[in-house]
């Protein structure tokens, strides 16, 4: 996510102000600006693409409703990450209580859209990595995606995840060795 780790992009300041006043166009412009990063997080936390889309829709709507209360104590990016992550947690709570609609697999990451990249094929050399990533507990996966994938500091990741910085560190310490082992073995094989 752009400028996820620090102060908001100064160019966005006026747009954020307009969005806070209820300017729908300004808000959706902000969403589009941050969407790719948020999509990257949510689609990897919720592998069922339909559910992931719904979670994002939920999160974006919640963000718009909550935007007047955004006080700029974190960057807008971090704030949006937090809303998206909480929406993922809500979704997990719901699906835990109900029959599974999808299972996590590389196949679930396939993009069936005509002309779009086929994720499973694109990551053919990374399938073991993908499987390992997707097999991580959601909280650990989120920490990896935010810090290693999104470039957030531990402190910002802790804000998004709603846990102390030390917890972020311990989650990363648990998650990274497996991922590194796979990547290193792939590197040796190639």
């Amino acid at each position: 996510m752009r400028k996820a780790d620090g102060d908001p992009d100064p160019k966005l300041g006026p747009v954020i102000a307009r969005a806070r006043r209820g300017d729908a166009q300004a808000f959706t412009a902000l969403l589009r600006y941050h969407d790719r990063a948020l999509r990257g997080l949510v689609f990897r936390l919720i592998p069922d693409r339909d559910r992931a889309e719904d979670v994002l829709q939920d999160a974006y709507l919640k963000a718009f409703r909550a935007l007047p209360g955004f006080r700029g104590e974190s960057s807008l990016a971090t704030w949006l990450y937090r809303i998206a992550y909480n929406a993922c947690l809500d979704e997990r709570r719901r699906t835990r209580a109900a029959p599974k609609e999808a299972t996590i697999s590389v196949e679930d990451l396939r993009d069936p859209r005509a002309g779009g990249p086929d994720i499973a094929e694109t990551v053919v050399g990374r399938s073991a990595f993908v499987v390992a990533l997707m097999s991580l507990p959601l909280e650990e996966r989120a920490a990896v995606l935010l810090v290693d994938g999104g470039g957030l500091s531990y402190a910002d990741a802790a804000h998004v995840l709603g846990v102390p910085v030390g917890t972020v560190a311990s989650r990363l310490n648990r998650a990274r060795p497996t991922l590194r082992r796979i990547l290193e073995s792939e590197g040796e094989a190639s």
Partner: protein
Amino acid sequence: MKGNRERDALIAQAIAQLPIPEHRPDFWAKIDALVTDEVSFRRQGVGPQSVAARWTLRAAAGVVVAVVVAVAIALLQLRTTGEASAAEVKERVAAALMKEQAVAGEIVYRALDSRTGKVETERWRFANTARGDFRLTVLGGTGDLAYDTRTGVERAITTSASLGAGRFYAVRSGLAPGPPDPGPSDSVLGRELGAVVRALLAAHDPRVDEIDYGGAQAWRVVVPVRPNRVYPDVDRLDITVDQETGFPLRAVATLGGHFRSELRIVDLKAPATLSPAAFSIRFPKHAEVLRTDGGFRRMPLDDARSTVGYSPPVPARIPTGYQLAEVAVARRAPSTGAGGANPPSRDVAALAYRRGFDKFVVTSRARGPRDERWRDPLGIEGINLRSTVVTLTRGALAGTRAQLVLDPRVVPHLWLVTPDLVITVAGDLNRSQLVEVVESLPAP
């Protein structure tokens, strides 16, 4: 970049190489529409916290409350296997329903589109009074439906495939207060919601488990359903009910283990006040409006006899708390039954009883020649409803055989044919209550 020194470069590179799926083609259009709606609500002074104000603008779906009510009733009949006892469920649910006079909230509905194989999502705001008024508004799209119990008139704005992108305005008047005759529309949500509720009512061995649902204690109920013979649709329903309020929060329908639809009620509120204006929609001045009249007219019970030519049967015994809320009569009404297979309905009297959100309707219609063949007035094409024959043992109708229908697909009901009338009792009643009401009817 702050914190970059803590980033694992190898993993970062691997993640960066993973493609990110694109949105559905309509994703941004829906976001734009949802946000625009939200802005519109704000301009009208309807913020997320302004529950009372929200009433005046965005209201409820009768079908939703029908679900709430029916789930509640259904729960009364459950034999529990989890920690929650039937008595506990009954107490909570009854208390929740008795104290609320209105509910409002937001619905998220996801359903598999069998033509495209894609799951489509829609959102509605709803409000509903215990009197039966409701309003249902599609968020981020075109669709607004309001029913005013005082007038028995339903007004709707929607789109029609045949009209292209244009709006379609409709007024349905003369509606019956409830089944088996056509009442307020539940076409938007009705089937799934109704099925959820009815499944509970008809299930002989349901399970109630205690679960954590989004941090709240909830009961989860799973029941089997008979799929439609013609278009197999659903064979299992999974329903989550909030322990605190007794309201259903989520219902998932599956067929052969595959997802079919999901309904979630979010942001459920119990507003203290409401404006009757909430249940009427204004159309543009020159809008072309399709008007239909179901033939039913509201009137005092004492006046009904002169209209239908007989004394509408009034039950002498009804479950505690119920009160006669509406009397509607029609000289002519659409045929009932699966595919409208029954003889034409004439001289119909419908008496609606309410208790909070609970409702049941006692309907009588004149019979024609003796050789007329009548089938279940609430029958559905493609489905063999589970029914049993009950021989009434008490009251003026003692000895009469009646059909008791408790099936997940249809509102619980009991119907019978007398020499002059076809009588139906349908609504939020369990088996013994249905029988008790019918056995207290006077001789026609």
